[in-house]
């Protein structure tokens, strides 16, 4: 982003809304002459200041049919919560879209995120909004863990099932339980203590898994949702692990340090796994994830993150995950794989690193990188399943393997799994859930691209 000349002189009239970069160093000069218009309040038309920059539009309020409140749109992607006007924030309203921006306000960025989370939680609580929803503080950031997601129809289905069996108290209890869980998690996020903040930030930035502490995923399958007859989330539970590893989160985060690849997974894991025991989701929750990151960071997470960052923030998620998955922890090999056999994606990576989008440039990248005829969904599946830290954790927990292992020794793999790893392509339905043995990874990867 270009530096705003007016801001440097202390007289930028767009203030928060300005599309240019307001570096913090030059910002300590409040200028009384510069009228700062609030972000949401600009009902008048904003005049174009710079010929080559399109400011976020402010729209005229127009009413119809007798109802007069707030019909206008607020400009641009509305991620900031209302009233987001305090001057401490970095000017990058679109930091997710801008290029690899060295996070000079590293702690500011974090602080902003945390503030945003706290504000959103407060609004969520007071507004009577649907509580069973996933949540992410900003575009491009993964979902925050600990929130279970259900649609209204699913809840209604549960109600109907329970009333058909005449156990509505059961339904009411389960719902109350879930509401309690939600409330706990919300309170926790609203008033984050230090370790909570740590874990949240690491969740949002790093490619780290968040295995929900005490419950394990066995609990998930046993009685998901706490309902006696709730088919959906139990099936989704099993399937979700390999899918969760699908780093479909657009890796366009400038601020996030290559968080894209696995960033989506940890929080979404939290979403589906069910604390069938309604734990007071307090310190237990926050400490465990923070412990987990540290252990998982060591082996390959940094490598994984690094490679995913390198292989191009804009290229397809499948490409990312596949390159990281097959070569976890071996950044050299990952580099070569990411640069060499992916001609399309490196170009895509470059272009998208300048303007990374939430939309990964899949067509070019996917065609370039889809190593198997299978859809990138399955490629991501395999990626997720075979080597990614994230899935390795939950599937590890489920299969009783230690979560921080990147490779499985040959002895632990069945013949079928070995055959899958040895084959040129994975067969849908037979994709192994454990990471491949280390010796299978090097030297044969050229055939896979």
């Amino acid at each position: 982003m270009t530096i705003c000349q007016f801001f440097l002189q202390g007289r930028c009239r767009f203030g928060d809304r300005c599309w240019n970069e307001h570096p913090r160093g030059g910002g300590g000069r409040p200028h009384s002459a510069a009228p700062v218009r609030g972000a949401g309040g600009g009902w008048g038309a904003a005049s174009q200041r710079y010929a080559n920059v399109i400011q976020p539009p402010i729209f005229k309020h127009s009413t119809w049919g007798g109802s007069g409140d707030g019909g206008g749109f607020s400009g641009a992607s509305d991620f900031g919560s209302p009233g987001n006007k305090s001057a401490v924030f970095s000017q990058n309203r679109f930091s997710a879209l801008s290029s690899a921006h060295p996070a000079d306000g590293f702690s500011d960025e974090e602080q902003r995120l945390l503030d945003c989370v706290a504000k959103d939680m407060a609004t969520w609580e007071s507004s009577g909004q649907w509580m069973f929803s996933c949540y992410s503080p900003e575009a491009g950031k993964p979902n925050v863990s600990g929130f279970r997601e259900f649609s209204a129809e699913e809840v209604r289905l549960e109600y109907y099932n329970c009333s058909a069996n005449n156990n509505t108290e059961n339904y009411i209890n389960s719902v109350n339980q879930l509401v309690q869980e939600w409330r706990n998690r919300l309170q926790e996020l609203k008033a984050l203590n230090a370790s909570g903040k740590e874990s949240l930030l690491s969740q949002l930035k790093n490619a780290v898994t968040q295995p929900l502490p005490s419950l394990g995923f066995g609990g998930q399958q046993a009685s998901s949702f706490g309902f006696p007859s709730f088919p959906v989330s139990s099936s989704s539970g099993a399937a979700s692990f390999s899918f969760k590893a699908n780093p479909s989160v657009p890796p366009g985060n400038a601020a996030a340090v290559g968080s894209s690849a696995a960033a989506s997974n940890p929080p979404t894991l939290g979403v589906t796994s069910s604390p069938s025991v309604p734990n007071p989701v307090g310190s237990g929750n926050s400490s465990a994830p923070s412990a987990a990151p540290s252990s998982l960071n060591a082996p390959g997470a940094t490598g994984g993150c690094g490679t995913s960052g390198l292989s191009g923030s804009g290229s397809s998620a499948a490409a990312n995950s596949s390159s990281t998955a097959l070569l976890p922890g071996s950044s050299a090999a990952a580099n070569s794989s990411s640069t060499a056999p992916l001609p399309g994606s490196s170009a895509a990576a470059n272009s998208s690193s300048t303007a990374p989008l939430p939309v990964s440039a899949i067509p070019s990248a996917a065609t370039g990188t889809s190593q198997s005829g299978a859809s990138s969904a399955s490629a991501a599946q395999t990626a997720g399943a075979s080597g990614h830290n994230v899935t390795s954790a939950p599937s590890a927990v489920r299969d009783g393997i230690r979560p921080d292992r990147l490779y499985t020794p040959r002895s632990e793999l069945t013949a079928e799994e070995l055959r899958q790893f040895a084959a040129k392509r994975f067969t849908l339905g037979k994709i192994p859930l454990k990471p491949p043995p280390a010796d299978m990874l090097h030297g044969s990867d050229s055939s896979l691209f």
Partner: protein
Amino acid sequence: MGERREAEGRGCAYCACAERAAVARCEAVRQDSPGPGCLPPPRCCVKNVSPWCGLERGKKPCTMKTMTGSNEFKLNQTPDDGISSVKFSPNTSQFLLVSSWDTTVRLYDVPANSMRLKYQHSGAVLDCAFYDPTHAWSGGLDQQLKMHDLNTDQENLVGGHDAPIRCVEYCPEVNVMVTGSWDQTVKLWDPRTPCNAGTFSQPEKVYTLSVSGDRLIVGTAGRRVLVWDLRNMGYVQQRRESSLKYQTRCIRAFPNKQGYVLSSIEGRVAVEYLDPSPEIQKKKYAFKCHRLKENNIEQIYPVNAISFHNVHNTFATGGSDGFVNIWDPFNKKRLCQFHRYPTSIASLAFSNDGTTLAIASSYMYEMDDIEHPEDGIYIRQVTDAETKPKST
């Protein structure tokens, strides 16, 4: 589900007056002149009498100017339970297909305000769609996808999913029916045979989907959005994330195939474009809507339904606050807001020519089983003034 006696019986379904003769009692419920926010009375004993003007109803909807305007009327013989989806026939605004939680799918003749046909599923039906003017497809909690010939009243069980079917849509360009389900798959069906033409895994439960030309946009749990090319389902064409912070409620594609509109449970709607190039992506935006300020606290309602006007490319949104708004996405303005409906808007549908809007006002159990106003389907004739972008 409230105390409902049999709707077809002789007694009033709501006030328990034994016979229709007790019209006087029901009339007591009705006000002389409806004020803003008045609800129409139960439809029982007063069914031959217009709830607003008290005159006997003729075959045509009551033409007296009422609070809803003479351009709006309520359909008769609405389903007994919540309405999940309404769809107009593709080539005419005469027929409306309605799927409901009372396990039926009904076909209404709109100008005549009568129900033409009704068929059953074994579980609540969550979505329905027209393949052509004579065939209706529907699926729901019973996990079965049924095709029904509306002329011959023949039913055909086409297939199913492993979990409730949440969405059913038709793609005319590729001539394929698409269903999305909570079993995390999208299935394609060839309507001519009819048979399954493929199963495609999604990363999460499918909550909504929409067809745009030959592309399919799927909104799943976890705020994910996937764009598939229906002619080449081997891989996902685009993997995106919703630009809103909360659960996706509904996605609808622009008729001009440039993009789609996505709504969330947080009273927010995002307009996004399909072209991944940066200049186009810069145009995307989001706005807040369907929020009410009560006692200084903003109540946030999910935006449950979106429907596009085929000609003008403007769209209507309906939320759980009971309001319907019409928006102009190009000028980024709201064109119109209708009066408040008795309860949450569950579904909206513009007719193909854009002259009629069907509004399904049906409590969605967001707050569990409480007493709620009756569900209803309102048919409204919309004018250009309400739906056409202002060319200033």
